[in-house]
């Protein structure tokens, strides 16, 4: 990293608060500091201080997370750099069980006294709260792994790439969009590095290095005569990759009648160029006639439907009621799982949970309570077969081990159950996107994610998208607008009749899946191939004010 390259472009617009949609944690640091990696031996010493202090105060179990969380934001609009910020959040979170109750405390003061005091506070909180227990915490057994490590298999660390290179890319993207007819564009490159160290009284000392990247943009085009405007978001997916994600090769692109789609890697410049063209087409598009349509849903859209209608309802904490006050419960109650025949979807529907999928946002070697991660079936041939669980829930569903779904978004946040990468498996028979469209008589092909909303038990949902193409008699005949579809989760997944094969399988995802009180975010990916759903209710969202 050439310091001057960074300095040249830093300081344009000081306040990270200018990024209302992007949470900014921690203090601002230089890019050089972002390339440092803390020696695991130092983190082990800190962890042992906490483990010993908690034990001496009466904790029967303790885990410690020493976390260093690095973010980089590069923000531009049109021909201006609005902001470049590197942030670091570094500290220790200590979770204990004492008198059968959880307690938690965290500090960013990493001297021995401060760590020991935080451990003591965690024990005090646990003991104070023990009177509000109905039964003591029961942890699934977990063997200690000793000193182990895991690194995300990235090719190019985004933090090592000169900021000037990133700025040049974003300004080129903006220029292409403006030349293509856009009136406004905001583009952002967001990079994350989580350096996490976990230790517990089970005997694990786990060091992990996790990377994520999300390049994105938001284009607006205005019709000066009517005053109407339309927007188009980037078709990128936030991903658990390094900067290589932005180096798309021909094999990373899928050419369709609607334009280029991206598989594994992303061409931001190309997407901005086609987005400027497509947003112009959106302005001239026909307003949809409400009614029943067969929907062909691209993975860039379907990931969000999977996230909301399958990922969240199969979280065991929701099923049990731990999220009842905020994020809600789940229609997939224990009796449905116990019956072993609850028909969640059609036989085409196979959904897996996977904490190890290479390139996914949720991929780690071990979760935030020291459980080695894996892959398992959640929906098998349309039937609910499993949930997503952590250590203190495993016994409730007869598991003798956690499924490794525990996560905290910062050292200062207590870890709790979060979603694994939940994905729809591709079809086994050869089927391309063109084949899907060819077989539809009256339908809509939807690309990209838009507005989204689902009820607190995950039955009723409504989704919009970025691009809507009308299909008539097996052909795309033009673009539609004002489209949203509404369905009941079970009916929707039972209407799934065809899924493209592995060659079309792609990951989408979110950097900011919100849950919990106090609220935390987590990053998670969802894979699928293009899938068809028959006779789904489509509404027209046009209004006049």
């Amino acid at each position, binding site marked *: 990293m050439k310091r001057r390259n960074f300095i040249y472009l830093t300081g344009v617009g000081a306040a990270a608060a200018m990024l209302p949609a992007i949470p900014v944690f921690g203090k601002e640091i*230089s890019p050089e500091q972002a390339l440092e990696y803390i020696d695991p031996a130092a983190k082990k010493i800190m962890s042992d201080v906490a483990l010993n202090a908690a034990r001496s105060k009466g904790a029967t179990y303790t885990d410690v997370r020493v976390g260093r969380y690095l973010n980089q934001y590069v923000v531009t609009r049109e021909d201006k750099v609005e902001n470049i910020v590197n942030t670091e959040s570094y500290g220790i979170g200590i979770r204990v069980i004492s008198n059968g109750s959880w307690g938690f405390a965290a500090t960013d003061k990493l001297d021995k006294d401060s760590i020991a005091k935080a451990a003591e506070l965690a024990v005090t909180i646990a003991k104070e709260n023990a009177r509000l*227990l109905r039964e003591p915490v029961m942890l699934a057994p977990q063997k200690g792994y000793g000193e182990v490590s895991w690194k995300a298999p990235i090719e190019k660390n985004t933090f090592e790439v000169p900021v000037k290179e990133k700025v040049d890319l974003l300004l080129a993207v903006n220029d292409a969009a403006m030349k293509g007819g856009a009136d406004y564009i905001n583009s952002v490159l967001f990079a994350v590095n989580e350096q996490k160290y976990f230790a517990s009284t089970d005997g694990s000392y786990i060091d992990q290095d996790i990377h994520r990247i999300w390049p994105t943009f938001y284009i607006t085009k205005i019709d000066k005569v009517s005053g109407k405007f339309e927007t188009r978001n980037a078709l990128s997916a936030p991903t658990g990759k390094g900067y290589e994600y932005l180096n798309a090769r021909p094999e990373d692109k899928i050419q369709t009648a609607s334009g280029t789609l991206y598989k594994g890697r992303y061409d931001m410049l190309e997407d901005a160029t086609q987005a400027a063209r497509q947003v112009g087409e959106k302005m001239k598009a026909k307003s949809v006639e409400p009614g029943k349509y067969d929907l062909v849903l691209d993975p860039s859209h379907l990931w969000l439907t999977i996230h909301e209608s399958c990922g969240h309802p199969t979280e065991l904490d929701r099923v049990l009621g731990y999220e009842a006050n905020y994020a809600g419960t789940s229609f997939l109650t224990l009796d449905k799982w116990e019956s072993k025949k609850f028909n969640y979807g059609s036989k085409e529907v196979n959904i897996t949970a996977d904490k190890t999928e290479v390139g996914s946002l949720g991929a780690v070697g071990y979760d935030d309570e020291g459980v080695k991660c894996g892959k398992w079936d959640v929906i098998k041939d349309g039937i609910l077969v499993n949930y997503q669980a952590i250590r203190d829930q495993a016994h409730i569903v007869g598991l003798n081990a956690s499924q490794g779904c525990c996560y905290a978004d910062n050292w200062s946040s207590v870890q709790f159950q979060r979603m694994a990468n939940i994905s729809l498996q591709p079809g086994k028979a050869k089927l391309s996107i063109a084949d899907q469209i060819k077989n539809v008589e009256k339908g809509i092909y939807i690309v990209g994610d838009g507005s989204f909303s689902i009820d607190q038990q995950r039955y009723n949902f409504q989704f919009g998208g970025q691009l809507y193409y009308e299909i008539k008699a097996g052909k795309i005949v033009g673009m539609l607008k004002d489209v949203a579809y509404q369905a009941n989760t079970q009916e929707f997944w039972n209407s799934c009749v065809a899924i493209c094969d592995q060659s079309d399988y792609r990951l989408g995802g979110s950097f900011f899946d919100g849950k919990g009180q106090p609220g935390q975010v987590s990053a998670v990916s969802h894979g699928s191939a293009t899938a068809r759903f028959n006779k789904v209710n489509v509404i027209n969202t046009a209004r006049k004010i």
Partner: protein
Amino acid sequence: MPILTKAEAKALLTKVLSYSKAEQCEVNLNCSDSGNLRYARNAVSTSGGISANSLVVSSAFGKKLGTATINEFDDASLEKVVRRAEELAQLAPENPEFMPFLGPQEYGPDSPTFSPATAAVTPKDRADAVQASLKQAMDNKLNAAGFLSNSVGCAALMNSKGLFAYNTSTDVAFNITVRTDDGKGSGYATRGYNDFSKLNAKADTAIAAKKAMSSVTAKAIEPGKYTVILEPTAVAVMLENLFFSLDARQADEGRSFMSKTGGKTKLGEQLVDERVNIYSDPWNPELPTSTWSGDGRPQEKINWIEKGVVKNLYSSRYWAQKTGIKAIPTPGGAIMQGGTKTLEELIKGTEKGILVTRLWYIRTVDPQTLLLTGLTRDGTFYIENGEIKFPVKNFRFNESPVIMLNNLDEIGIAERTVSAESEANYLLPPLRIRDFTFTSLSDAV
């Protein structure tokens, strides 16, 4: 670091500024101590305490600006953060939208944002309040899930042009969902205060419990356009999407529901029913907020919508100077002027309608019309001839707050409430609205 007094904050920021060699320097201090207790299935689940302090230094040379932050407060660290901000500023390109820092400002009298009772809350106090809530639920054989949090904080701003601003604040937030054991009924209550002593977790739990017990055996009725009564919590999540969109630049650029053709806006036009008055007032005793914004601008009483006419838009200082409008900052809270009727009286005056106690998962469908979608939750009831007749299944709605405020039927008494989406506090009345658009049914309880 404990919460600093005004004199301590002034001394600290004066010291930081004394290290500055920049043409302009501005220092922001924020400190916060908070605690929380979460419970579900009638037992504690998680609980914690967080202490966080930060100092932000912005240094400027001409239109070149550098910013650095730190959370260490010894002299060497303070000087280091100033040097780093200056280094960044010296080498940064010019920012065409940079505005010089403000000079001294008049902020008026202090606003009562700080309560000693809240600042003194302990883990035991939280556990006591939650214990009372749990007892209320369990005595009624109901299932409670809730969250209680409290915080105390200080904020201070000083710059080399002589501006100094300081504020302390305290907050308490409590929300509770009570469900029947069979999962067929659910009720919700939420409260936010500056003063912890106003919190009555037992009474709030009783409200949620009553809704839970009343909402079992909900009947399905057809979606469509209905007269609805929205309780203040439901009003909050609809109207905050309107508040969030009153930005002048977005409107001028043609990217807002406030935009018109040719770069014009709807500022000064009748947008909604003439009985709608929405304003912000830092000194409102029910919703006190800071008298200054993050960049040092004074917060005043501002009329945003007066007799249905949009009177003001908020804006950055840069955009205000460019367009010649007043540089009004985003407010700390929003208030809608209430009427004289209680919620019960609104119900009594309803021939046929639906009582909505909470709305959930609100998302923008179309920014041009502010069309929102979301669902009812935790107690939805059918009203006929002035009485609640029976609970109904939840609905999905597709509605714009602008259309909603044009279909205004009656306004109730305003009360402090909390958005279950943003957690922001507001002072809002219950509203009776004609032709509110429900588009489908939900089986969720």
